[in-house]
């Protein structure tokens, strides 16, 4: 499979490559996997068929007229130009059709907005360009980032099956339970969308929005950010895995354990010194995942929007300042505070990387303890 795909993609002609890359696309809106999504689908089909019927009648008459009432056939034009009766008729009929349509639409909308009696609540926070999920019933929380490698996007590697629709850590929800989503954002407006659930809700900075779903089928469901949110808007997918309640419980416990373990490791790390090699390799990975979107893989940034790190005064000279800005971000810019997003080790590593990559050869190591010191206010 992978082999044939890479063969396909190595074809030089753009046109050929596009036509042989046959992946089936559904031609209609998904029915989805929830009761609501099914209702939405039914509404969509109803209004669609209504439009088709009206279209067939109107265009039918029009084409009949085009065929029959043409000058070439030697017809004499009639001169009638008004009829109040007809006008009233074709005002009234659409009104009736619309009223008929509005009734089921109203019912579905009311059902969609009823977020009461939820079993699980997840706080979803959008930020440029990743999602953060936090389960309110327990302390599980994590970021969910695009997992498609850069090389696939730049066409150096063959594209995988779920190209651009895969994340490192998907959201997991239990089946058969009412799951409530609270949406908010850390920066610009994002929109969390999973077509299979018919859930699309904007994540507004400073405000919360609600939506809910109840999924009966275990499975993997994919969606994307639907509101233009800046440069990498096209690269922040949503992946949700629905698991049976038992599997879900197991997963939650596993996650809680993983997070606790990571915290314990942090403490141990403070006493440890990592080697340049280790820091650089962890740093490169972290940089690619969290920093390269703005500061670019080559560290040169995008002039006028995202500052360069390569050769910058801060990356070369101001170590405490550098640590501080990575930890706490910079208010009023796109630079986020990573203290809560990354582990001490990752922060230490990524700063080491930034101070030693692309010819920024400071030779300096930044250890977890250094980061911790700045965090505690001692490094400044």
């Amino acid at each position, binding site marked *: 499979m992978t082999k044939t795909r890479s063969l396909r993609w190595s074809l030089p002609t753009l046109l050929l490559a596009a036509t042989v890359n046959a992946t089936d696309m559904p031609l209609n809106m998904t029915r989805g996997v929830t009761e609501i999504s099914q209702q939405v689908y039914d509404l969509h089909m109803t209004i669609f068929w209504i439009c088709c019927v009206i279209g067939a009648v109107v265009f039918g008459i029009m084409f009949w007229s085009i065929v029959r009432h043409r000058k070439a056939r030697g017809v004499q034009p009639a001169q009638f130009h008004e009829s109040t009766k007809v006008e009233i008729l074709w005002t009234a009929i659409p009104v009736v059709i619309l009223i008929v349509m509005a009734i089921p639409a109203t019912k579905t909308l009311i059902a969609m907005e009823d*977020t009461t009696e939820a079993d699980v609540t997840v706080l979803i926070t959008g930020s440029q360009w990743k999602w953060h999920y936090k389960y309110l019933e327990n302390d599980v929380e994590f970021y969910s980032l695009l997992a498609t490698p850069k090389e696939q996007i730049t066409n150096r590697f063959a594209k995988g099956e779920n190209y651009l629709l895969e994340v490192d850590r998907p959201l997991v929800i239990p089946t058969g339970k009412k799951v409530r989503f609270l949406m908010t954002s850390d920066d610009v407006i994002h929109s969390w969308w999973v077509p299979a659930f018919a859930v699309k809700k904007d994540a507004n900075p400073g*405000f919360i929005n609600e939506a809910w779903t109840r999924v009966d089928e275990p499975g993997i469901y994919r969606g994307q950010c639907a509101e233009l949110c800046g440069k990498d808007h096209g690269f922040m997918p949503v992946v949700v895995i629905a698991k049976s309640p038992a599997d879900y419980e197991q997963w939650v416990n596993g996650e809680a354990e993983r997070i606790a373990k990571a915290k314990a490791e942090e403490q141990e790390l403070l006493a440890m010194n990592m080697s340049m090699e280790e820091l650089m390799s962890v740093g490169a990975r972290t940089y690619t995942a969290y920093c390269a979107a703005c500061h670019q893989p080559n560290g040169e940034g995008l002039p006028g929007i995202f*500052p360069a790190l390569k050769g910058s005064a801060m990356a070369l000279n101001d170590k405490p300042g550098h640590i501080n*800005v990575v930890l706490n971000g910079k208010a009023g810019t796109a630079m986020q505070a990573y203290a809560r997003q990354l582990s001490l080790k990752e922060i230490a590593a990524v700063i080491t990387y930034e101070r030693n990559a692309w010819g920024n050869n400071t030779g300096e190591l930044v250890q977890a303890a250094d980061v911790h010191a700045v965090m505690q206010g001692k490094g400044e």
Partner: protein
Amino acid sequence: MALKHKPLTFKLAVTALAMFGFGFALVPLYDVFCDLTGLNGKTAATAASADAALIDTSREVVIEFIARPNKQMPWVFKPEVRRMTVHPGEIHIMNYLAENPTGRMIVGQAVPSVSPGQAALYFHKIECFCFTQQQLAGGKNMLMPLQFYVDPALPSQFSTITLSYTLYDVTSAWTGDTAASSQLGE
């Protein structure tokens, strides 16, 4: 300009100017509209009076508390408890923990949002840290209180009210000095 066009041209120009003003008038109008309908889930920015209505012990409402520092805000910011069950009319105090782990003074402003939005009309705050900006020196922590009650008139379809606070770093606006923190790459 021909004389006969002047009055109409003038009227139209004035209309255009008035509509420019109307664009700005939409800002307060929107706030009024939100206050009336709970459109955006904003709670009142000023204190409600403490003489609460009768306590309705026959009914329970779950209040969920969410506290998030914005991603550019380094504070730790948490509610003491995640949720609370209250009777409408009862006055409660809820504490939020704030900690400034950095080495510098930071000013925070909490922005409330209630969901479902209409419930915001029935969530009354007698005292709240969100009414004013909060200063916290580096390395220090504090408890920030919120005193509130739920209006017994809360429509019956609301059984859970989610109160979210997003905490913003407004230090630069506070000191008027935007160049306080050093910028990466400059």
